[in-house]
């Protein structure tokens, strides 16, 4: 799966969790939390949706690797390989 596929998977999940957020203006290098109204509960949902939809596990100690869209892609890509 390409990096842009993985990026889209994360964006789709964010759009479902926080339907009021505009995901088209996200700066990939900046913290998601700073750009969108996402709290720790929402990050849990990203993790839960990754497991539910794609059988991808993110252990609790790795939650911080989901901080930016860029870091999501680099962390998750090997898991989708």
């Amino acid at each position, binding site marked *: 799966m390409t990096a842009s596929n993985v990026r889209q998977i994360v964006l789709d999940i964010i759009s479902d*969790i926080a339907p009021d957020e505009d995901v088209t203006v996200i700066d990939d290098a900046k913290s998601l939390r700073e750009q969108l109204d996402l709290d720790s*509960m929402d990050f849990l949902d990203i993790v839960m949706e990754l497991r539910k939809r794609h059988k991808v596990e993110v252990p609790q100690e790795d939650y911080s690797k989901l901080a930016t869209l860029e870091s999501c892609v680099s962390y998750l890509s090997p898991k989708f390989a």
Partner: protein
Amino acid sequence: MKYDAIVIGAGMSGLAAGIRLAMFDKKVVILEKHSISGGLNSYYQRRNFDQGGVRQFDVGLHALTNFIKKGEKGKPFSKLLKQLRLSYDDFKLCPQTHSRISFPDVELKFSNEFDLLMTEVSEKFPKEIDSFAVLVEKVKGFNELDLSLGYTSSRDTLKKIFKDDLLIEMILCPLLIYGSAWEDDMDFAQFVIMFKSLYFEGFSRPEGGVRTIISLLLKRLEEVGGEIRFKSSVTSILTSEMGQVVGVDLGGEILYAPIILSSIGYPETVRITPALESPSSPRVGAMTFLESIFIFDKKIPLDQNNSTIVFYNNAKNYSYRPATNLYDSTSAVVCFPDNYEAQKNSGEGVIRVTFMANYAHWKELGREEYDLKKEQVGESALKLIKTMVPRFDGKVLFKDIFSPLTIERYTWHLNGTVYGSIDKTRDGTTKVAGLFIIGTDQGFLGIIGSILSGISMANLHGLMGAKHEV
């Protein structure tokens, strides 16, 4: 039968927890003793033959706290919308006009715009306005969701900020009566939650009352595949020799699960869990109430009263504790549900009057005396209404009064307590591994608080914790 998780009680917290777990494919069942959902925020019906129909009443709901406007972010209400994937519009919120705290010589109004309360304080307590600003900053900067916090007295904290005791009493009055299990005081974290919920955010009411919320939650639960069983009474919570929860006994039928979330109250949970029995069991709270509901043949004209909720106190010192006698009519919460926007202007008028009560005294009464005393409560409530809207000449079409015993009978909360035990377990844990407390006794109160309690405990112990068990 084996489940991933069992939720006991289909109140607000139980339904929310069930939804969260089922959303992520946990096999979950909610067990409810009653034949309907809602718990402490349920509804009931009364026939009234002379008008040939059945009337439905909400039990708890005077006001839904934590009001937000559509699209507002980062607030408790918006968090629950996201977590349960519900839409703002489905709640059909009708905001309050304003509410007021009414003491013998002074009144403070507040609304869903916090500025009103600021202005009121500056006009009525000009010397205290700077201190009030200090309190506001303290509340804003406080992390009330920190689950590791211990008990701090709100009264002590307020005394360090304000010189005027009357203002302290007036600020505390609505917060205590809308959510304190403790007498005359509350935990400061709870104070902050309530201050934000009532004063920063404010009140609304869903069109259709509490049933609107219950229906939304039940529908969501069904969509995500959660199971719910009514008239299912848990007689015992079963544990292994290792002290791990294994399931529940339904009086013959056994259901197994490694995780149980109990919303029935902390002391109530201990009572059915032999492994939790100990001399230091959580204490049953003392705060319980009486409510009189009146239906009038016409609406109360707005020029006679345009407030939605009146926090009334006529005593020299406001006292929040069980009544010395059966009930205390020197203070009350009076709700005018017609004064939520978007309610019809014609037709019947409704007023609800809540007094503090004393469970033990009601428990002692014989059947006849009980009915008689309830009538007396109704008369006291009408008298209070008369002093508030002296020119109102509406005729009472229907009235209903519920007592601490009624609350106990239908919610199974010991002693008819509404705000639960004074011993909260903020992280939800008990001495039994896998058994967690959610709802009122986890410490988040009110409808929004309970829903968030169910969500956060399901997240913490059912979803995040799930990986560690395998």
